[in-house]
């Protein structure tokens, strides 16, 4: 997030794109609710009628996968009605003319037809977003899990840049991170092209710095993204997999294909707190690890705040902390890193990563600090891009519509979209173990519009088969006003009806994020 | 319009606030979003039935009073907040409003009927069981039909939407052009709805709990708009004074009930004695029995002994005896002792406390138990006086402030001994 969670309360206008915030980020949504109570305007872009959408000033219930035409049209309205921040655009952005031309390709009426929303609503949303100073954009997986995920995000940052909605409180462009430490995971260099602290592998000086610090030469060959790793299973260029706390055969799309790959592996090492599906079938070695309540360390939340994780109870049996296991394995591999001490590990990271150098355990004992925080006297950074975008000039991108990887057609006439619900979390290995949560939402369901249900002669709560070109699963119909005609929606949490059996190989053309959000399906009775 | 003629008029709903002061406050309040008038006809004070009587006999005059007040303060919307059991009166009011609509005295939309909120689990009583207004005002009726004994169901009342008030648009748009629009709002069926801010909350579709004051309704009333709230009788006197029919605030309507031969509403001079009211107006005590105790101005004014029957019925004199004129509702008892009557009143308060504030929620109930207990055991650490003081000083609204008066009157006039268990 460019901005902070607490600031949301001061918003005058919020543009929420593809985020069912009240269910996926419930406590952050409380700040939005508070802002709404104070009269803030709410604009929601979502194919589904979510809690927020129902209460929004404008709900753009777009056809899934048409975010870019919509954002282009909004940009177009803002520019053509002269609502953009000319001074900001001139002095602090680049690429305006190209972007403007690309947006001009999407007059409101054309976008309205493509997105299947009301043209008046697009105009209204554009005017509201441009009119308020404290207007922030919030988005999640709904926007990134598409073939055009990166461009989707760019289409949002275009809006922020042309209106100058950046660099002060309660504004900016704010991705809401799905998992607790997605932010930290990226910060730590858990990325094939970035070393810790966003220092590029391609950058020789950065490699030298880390090589010197670690006493080993860092390879200059860029690593593989997860999707490329999985591809590597198939052509057998990947032989061994070390999986820490993940269950790829449940969480990755096109499950059948993933299974084929895993069968070819020579070595799978799994480290987790439960025996997950992947480990059960494929692991050669399984290390019993500890959960967050049993270890010391830090998490970094969506607003870049590094906060202390502390040990409350002992791990069961012989389970060891993840850090201890990695240290033990390093030693076994011939590298004695000494005692596995989280604070020392953090300090090593902070020393090598300038944006984090000012953060240490002592400073975050009471409350977390938001990076960038270059030195120990720095208070941390509540919002980014103050005064000017960090890179000097904000880049505006000319964008065009990219069709989803798979669109509904005569054979598979419905578009399936997936997401999280309030009561469960991802593959629900933890929440489904809570009786109370299982009870509130015990089984998988398929939200379907009343119109589609009538046409297909499907009753509420009826058992149905959801079929895609890759496979089929059984679930239960839930006739709902939340989805529009032609679209069905399923939660992603249930192993017995794993939606990843249905989803395709579509992935973002630039960064390989799988297109969880969309695939073409049909429904029939079992 | 000039309201100098109202200078002497004081509100007749129990609190006795100068009427012209309120009218001027609302007239001078911010008019940006409109103003509202509410005629308080909830009449939930046991022993009081003058509002019902006024609608029975002088309905048009009361409404004229409301109209004139509206004209004076420049209100666009008005409501008669009617005790839900008053179904006959509801019809009279509706007819009178229709007549005035045809005479172009009220906006054409006037006369709609809304339902205010009650306490969940306590729907308003729309069925009055065929009782007269006098019978409906008896303490026994109120104690019996308290929170638990439910009669009728709100939802079945001829299509009245329970939350209609909530959705009602602010009185800006159409109505300003159309003139003063007067509607009926059926009360929530709780004693506390007679308190003006609780009444406003109930009209907004909320739980009828009194608001903290300030701010007062004259600036922040219904939907936050400046709101004039007056009792039915106040509007009636005001109308008579404005029309020149009456000059002075020298008389009042007395509701006389209980053990008298001719219970009813009588207009009599302020300062008349209770004995005169009973004998000269209400036909004397039933069966010429001996009076055990009496109530001067509704249940909240507590009991007085027969020895004080010759004192003047005026605020000033009654204050010397520890009470007030209240709603000028005289209730005569011959069979029940002062303690029995007081116990019932306390029980009534305990069940009608809105439960918002601790002193009243707990205090009323504990004192009701204490009075009802034959041995009058007081089981608490703090003394009875401390508890009474906490209620008097620590409550939010009049119910809590005045409930201790019931005990004080027993102590003062009936030698009721305060006892301590420990």
């Amino acid at each position, binding site marked *: 997030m460019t901005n902070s*969670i607490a600031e949301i309360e001061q918003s005058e206008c919020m543009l929420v794109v593809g985020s069912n915030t009240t269910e996926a*980020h*419930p*406590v952050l949504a409380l700040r939005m609710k*508070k802002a709404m*109570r104070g009269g803030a305007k709410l604009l929601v872009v979502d194919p589904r009628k979510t809690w927020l959408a129902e209460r929004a000033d404008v709900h753009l219930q777009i056809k899934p996968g048409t975010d870019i035409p919509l954002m282009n049209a909004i940009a177009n309205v803002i520019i053509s009605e002269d609502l953009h921040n000319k001074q900001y655009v001139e002095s602090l952005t680049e690429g305006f003319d190209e972007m403007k031309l690309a947006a001009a390709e999407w007059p409101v009426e054309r976008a309205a037809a493509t997105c299947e929303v009301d043209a008046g609503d697009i105009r209204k949303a554009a005017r509201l977003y441009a009119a308020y100073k404290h207007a922030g954009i919030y988005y999640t997986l709904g926007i990134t899990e598409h073939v055009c995920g990166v461009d989707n995000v760019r289409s949002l940052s275009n809006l922020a840049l042309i209106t100058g909605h950046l660099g002060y409180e309660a504004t900016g462009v704010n991705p809401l991170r799905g*998992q607790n*430490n997605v932010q930290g995971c*990226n910060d730590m260099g*858990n*990325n094939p092209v970035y070393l810790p602290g966003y220092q590029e592998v391609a950058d020789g000086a950065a490699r030298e710095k*880390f090589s010197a610090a670690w006493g080993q030469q*860092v390879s200059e060959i860029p*690593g*593989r*993204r997860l999707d490329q790793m999985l591809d590597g299973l198939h052509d057998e260029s990947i032989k061994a997999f*070390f*999986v*820490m*706390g*993940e269950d790829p055969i449940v969480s990755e799309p096109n499950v059948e294909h993933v299974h084929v790959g895993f069968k070819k592996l*020579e070595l799978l090492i799994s480290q987790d707190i439960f*025996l997950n599906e992947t480990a059960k079938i494929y692991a050669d070695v*399984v290390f*019993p690890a500890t959960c967050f309540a049993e270890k010391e360390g*830090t*998490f*970094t*939340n969506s607003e870049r705040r590094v*906060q202390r*994780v*502390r040990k409350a*109870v002992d791990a*069961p*049996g012989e389970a*060891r902390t*993840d850090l201890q296991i990695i240290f033990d*394995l390093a030693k076994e591999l011939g590298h004695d890193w000494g005692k596995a001490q989280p604070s020392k590990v953090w300090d*090593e*990271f902070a020393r090598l990563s300038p944006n984090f150098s000012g953060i240490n355990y002592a400073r975050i004992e009471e*409350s977390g600090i938001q990076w960038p925080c270059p030195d120990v006297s720095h208070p941390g950074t509540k919002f980014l891009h103050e005064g000017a975008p960090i890179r000097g000039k904000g880049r505006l991108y000319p964008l065009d519509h990219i069709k989803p990887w798979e669109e509904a057609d005569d054979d598979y006439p419905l578009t399936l979209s997936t997401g999280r619900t*309030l009561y469960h979390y991802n593959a629900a290995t933890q929440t489904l*173990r809570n009786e109370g*949560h299982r009870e*509130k939402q015990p089984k998988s369901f398929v939200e379907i519009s009343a119109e589609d249900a009538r046409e297909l002669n499907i009753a509420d709560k009826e058992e149905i088969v959801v079929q895609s070109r890759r496979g089929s699963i059984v679930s239960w119909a839930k006739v709902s006003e939340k989805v529009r005609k032609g679209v069905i929606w399923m939660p992603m949490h249930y192993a017995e009806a794993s939606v990843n059996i249905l989803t395709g190989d579509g992935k973002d053309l630039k960064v390989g994020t799988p297109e969880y959000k969309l695939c073409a399906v049909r429904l029939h009775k079992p | 319009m000039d309201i100098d003629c109202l200078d002497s008029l004081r509100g007749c709903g129990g609190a006795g606030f100068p009427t012209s002061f309120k009218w001027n406050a609302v007239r001078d309040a911010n008019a940006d979003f409109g103003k509202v008038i509410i005629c308080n006809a909830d009449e939930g004070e046991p022993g009081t039935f003058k509002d019902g009587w006024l609608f029975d006999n002088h309905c048009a005059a009361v409404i004229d009073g409301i109209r004139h007040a509206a004209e004076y303060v420049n209100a666009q919307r008005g409501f008669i907040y009617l005790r839900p059991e008053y179904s006959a009166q509801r019809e009279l009011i509706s007819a009178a409003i229709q007549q005035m609509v045809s005479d172009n005295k009220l906006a054409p939309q006037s006369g709609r009927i809304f339902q205010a909120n009650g306490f969940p*689990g306590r729907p308003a009583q729309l069925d009055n069981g065929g009782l007269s207004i006098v019978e409906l005002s008896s303490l026994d009726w109120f104690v019996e039909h308290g929170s*638990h004994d439910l009669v009728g169901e709100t939802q079945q009342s001829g299509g009245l939407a329970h939350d209609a008030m909530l959705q009602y648009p602010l009185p800006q748009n159409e109505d300003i052009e159309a003139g003063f629009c007067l509607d009926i709002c059926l009360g929530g069926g709780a004693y506390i709805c007679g308190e003006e801010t609780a009444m406003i909350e109930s009209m907004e579709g909320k739980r009828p709990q009194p608001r*903290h004051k300030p701010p007062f309704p004259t600036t922040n009333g219904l939907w936050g708009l400046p709101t004039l709230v007056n009792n039915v009788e106040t509007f009636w006197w005001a109308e008579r004074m404005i029309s020149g029919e009456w000059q002075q605030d020298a008389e009042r309507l007395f509701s006389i009930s209980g053990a008298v031969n001719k219970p009813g509403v009588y207009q009599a001079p302020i300062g008349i004695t209770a004995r005169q009211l009973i004998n000269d107006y209400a036909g004397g005590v039933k069966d010429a029995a001996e009076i055990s105790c009496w109530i001067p101005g509704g249940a909240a004014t507590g009991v007085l002994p027969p020895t004080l029957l010759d004192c003047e019925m005026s605020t000033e004199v009654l204050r010397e005896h520890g009470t007030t004129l209240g709603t000028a509702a005289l209730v005569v008892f011959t069979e029940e002792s002062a303690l029995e009557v007081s116990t019932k009143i306390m029980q009534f308060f*305990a069940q009608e406390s*809105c439960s*918002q*504030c601790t002193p009243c929620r707990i205090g009323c109930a*504990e004192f009701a138990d204490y009075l009802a207990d034959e041995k009058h055991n007081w089981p*608490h*650490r*703090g003394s009875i006086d401390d508890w009474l*003081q*906490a209620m008097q000083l620590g*409550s*939010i609204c009049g119910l809590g402030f005045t409930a201790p008066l019931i005990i004080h009157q027993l102590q003062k006039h009936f030698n009721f001994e305060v006892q301590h268990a420990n």
Partner: protein
Amino acid sequence: MPTNTLTINGEQVAVLQGESLLDACAKMGISLLTACHDNRLEAYGGCRTCLVDLDGAPRPVPACKTLTSAGMVVSTSGEQLETVRATIDEMLECIPAAALETWTDANRFIGYDPQQCIMCDRCVRYCDEIMQCNALEHVGQGVDAFIQPTQGDSFLDTSCELCGGCIGTCPTDALYSKQSLKVFNEQSDAVLSSTRTVCNYCGVGCVIDIESQGNNVIDIDAQTGVGPNDGHLCSKGRFAWQFINHPQRLTKPLVRNTESGELEETSWQNALSIAATKMLDIKQRHGADSLAFLASSRCTNEDVYALQKLARAIIGTNNVHSCAAT
């Protein structure tokens, strides 16, 4: 921001417009007892524990519900005032004679004991103002008043989102966590402790307090004013902790028996040495880039840093990634 100056107990204090007498007292270091007040909610003024004397007011006023204005003269002590407050405290301890049955709601998270309830309405207001769910209501009057799920339905059928915020704000034990009650062992003398840490579910990063008895987690709670969540939690953060003490947790390293194909328990030494040997062997045969490392974005920063360091500095590959790149 405009400020007002007022006098409290003879001393002057400047406050911002919109601040209450309670805020003003806090500024002067005077702490008043409160029960119905939660500064995340609109002031209610119902419990009357925070009464203070205000010059010109006919009776004491609740500090929490009274906005400051310039020139106010306030006193927070005095014999009469203190007696009133002490009496109100005594009243709050009073268990209403007509204590009701608890609701027999089938939900497994939220329990209610009307005997402990002081009708401060914090739960109802929390659900209304913060959650905007309106899943709780205050019903009845007088001492018979109580709290129930809206329309009397079970929480499982209402708009309740099972966030437990009502439990969090309840100043008494009237609303309680059924899960905690179930695992809390009254007999045990194991040490009770509270550990401040961060929720492990979503990216909001709520700061939580894990309450434990010996080695058992018995509750998760959050403190007002702490972390990005200001005491709020969602259903997952507050209640989804049964997995921590779950019997299916892995307790020993496992290796696959090459003959039976089953996973079998083994010693750490054995598991580590098999893993290391095989990794080195594959590296030797197929090169460092044939190994891939996948870390969960649920792990701590330190875990992730160490793993990527192991991949980069020991194995020599940049093949490190995680499942969700968002």
